[in-house]
Each structure stands twice: as structure tokens, then as C-alpha cells.
């Protein structure tokens, strides 16, 4: 697996040489530092621990800061399982990692929508607005009667929506800029602007 920590900067459009407009998301690759590695003998699996975005040393607890032997503590800390690329602990990785990658999966935290009803949250169809209807946006029945005489767990109901970890798969990489350390990826990416995202080489391509 290949992956880096990035920051969503926003969306725009780019023309290709044929004049076709493509909607793209600009993802800034943060200064990814390899903090540590996990190996078979000690941990039972192979992974690279990657950190990005500097954090004030005074704000980090001692056990947390103790992980960072080369430089200041980082606020984002991720393990990348079975890392394919070349790296050394303490070194940094940049956008050039995606030079030969055509498709990526992007994971981020989606925008929070607050407390929402079932129509928005679960796509229920709702009832008629008019024609004497008294059922508009409600959820209707939530279960059966005397048996089981309870509402089953997991029943779709109103509640908090958004702010979940979401992955969008198979987004085409339009451009990799090694000088300014950013990626252009076709399509939308979860999360708000300036949100932290994980960019990984596509799993299914």
C-alpha cells in the first residue's frame, strides 16, 4: 500500500489539451514524516507510522511526545499497513510517491450535518405534501405489535448525521505537482476545506 496524509484545499476545474473540463479537488500533501515502523517480530504485522502537521511541544502529553524521536510532535498520526514504497525512519515522504499512480482512494471525515430527519439521513421517501395528506416527513412505523413488542436495534431513525469517516474509492489522479506538493484528483472528496484526508493508492484498481 502507498499512502500519505494530505489536506483538502478546495475544488476547481481544469482543462485538458482537448478542451474537456474536469472537476478536480486540490489536495495539499503535508510534510509527511516517517515516525516509526512496525515489524513482524515485535508487533505481528508490518506497517509504517506516519505523522504530519506540527503540534506545539507544550501541548503534547509526554507519552505522546515520546514517540517523536526526530523533531517536534505531529498532530496527525497514522499507521499505513504493508507500505510498498521506500522509506527510512525519520525521513520525509512527498507527493512524488504518487508519480506513477493513476487511481487513489481518499479517506476523510465528512461534513457534519447535525440532527437530521429520516428523509435526509436515510433517504426515506416521506408522504404527500398536499391532497389532504397528514403524513409529510415523518418516519412512519418503527416495528411490529405485541410480538416482538420492542423496536429492533439498528432501526433507521432521526439523529446525528455526517462527521463520519468516509472513503471515496477510485478517484483518478489528474496531476501530481512535486514542486508545490499537491495532487489534483478528479471528483469530490469527503470533508470540509482544510480538512485532513488520507490519500492511498487505489485498492481495487
Amino acid at each position, binding site marked *: 500500500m502507498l499512502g500519505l496524509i494530505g489536506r483538502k*484545499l478546495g*475544488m476547481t*476545474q481544469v482543462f485538458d*489539451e482537448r*478542451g474537456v*473540463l474536469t472537476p478536480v479537488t*486540490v489536495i495539499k500533501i503535508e510534510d509527511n514524516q516517517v515516525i516509526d515502523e512496525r515489524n513482524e517480530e515485535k508487533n505481528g504485522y508490518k506497517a509504517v507510522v506516519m505523522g504530519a502537521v506540527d503540534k506545539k511541544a507544550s501541548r503534547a502529553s509526554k507519552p505522546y511526545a515520546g514517540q517523536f524521536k526526530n523533531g517536534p510532535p505531529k498532530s496527525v498520526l497514522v499507521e499505513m499497513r504493508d507500505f510498498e514504497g521506500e522509506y527510512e525512519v525519520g525521513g520525509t515522504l512527498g507527493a512524488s510517491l504518487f508519480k506513477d499512480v493513476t487511481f487513489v482512494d481518499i479517506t476523510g471525515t465528512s461534513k457534519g450535518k447535525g440532527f437530521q430527519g429520516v428523509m435526509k439521513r436515510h433517504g426515506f421517501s416521506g408522504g404527500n405534501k398536499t391532497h389532504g395528506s397528514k403524513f409529510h416527513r415523518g418516519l412512519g412505523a418503527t416495528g411490529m405489535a405485541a410480538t416482538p413488542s420492542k423496536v429492533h436495534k439498528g432501526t433507521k431513525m432521526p439523529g446525528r448525521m455526517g462527521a463520519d469517516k468516509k472513503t471515496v474509492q477510485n478517484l483518478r489522479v489528474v496531476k501530481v505537482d512535486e514542486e508545490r506538493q499537491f495532487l489534483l484528483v478528479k471528483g469530490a472528496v469527503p470533508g470540509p476545506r482544510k480538512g485532513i484526508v488520507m490519500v492511498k493508492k487505489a485498492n481495487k484498481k
Partner: protein
Amino acid sequence: MDLVQAVEAEQMKENADNFRIGDTVKVHFKIVEGQTERIQIFQGIVLSMKNTGVRKTFIVRKMSYGVGVERVFPVYSPRIDRIEVVRRGRVRRAKLYYLRKRVGKAAKVNELIRRRDQIKKAGE
């Protein structure tokens, strides 16, 4: 947002929109037919401009065999070879959608007549 704007600025040609609403323009548009590429000219009145940044577009209207034809062009499209201003128009509105309802002589835009020093000042 700087980087997003930088990505957009890279694609923007300078002086691509050197025309105004109401001008009669010739748009030299590249058309790809299989392997060959040729330039087609679309001449008409600029009705409106919309959006900003790389997404900026304009509408050109012409009468073709008695039928009104409108085309939307992206200003910064690489397929636009160049835009030639044939005639300056004197208009008082930013969107000339009223022309769509007019027929014949009423559907025209007066020419913008300027003194020589005014043209010089505008830098054309």
C-alpha cells in the same frame, strides 16, 4: 485557497476576454475531426458573460437562416484559438437577453461610436 487559485491562474490566458457585452465577435473555435483539426468561425453578438475564474463563459447569439442560434463558450478553453472583435456595441445592460424576443431590425445593437482619443484611452 491560494493553491486553488494558482491552479486556476495557470490555465487563464491573458487578454482572453478583450471584448464587451454587445460586441459582435468572431470566435475561432478548433474542431477535432478524427485526426485532423480545423478552425470554425462562429460570428455573433455577445449576449452575456457568466461565472468567474477558469469557469468564465460567454454566450454568442447569431441568426442562421432565420433561426436564432446561441453558443456558450468557456473563455479560457484551449479550443478557442482567438476571439476577434468585429464591431463594438453600445448597450446599457450586462445581459442582453431581451434580444431573444426581438425580430428583424429591432434585434440589433447600435454600434459604439467613439472619438479617436477615447479609443486611445481604452487602449485598443
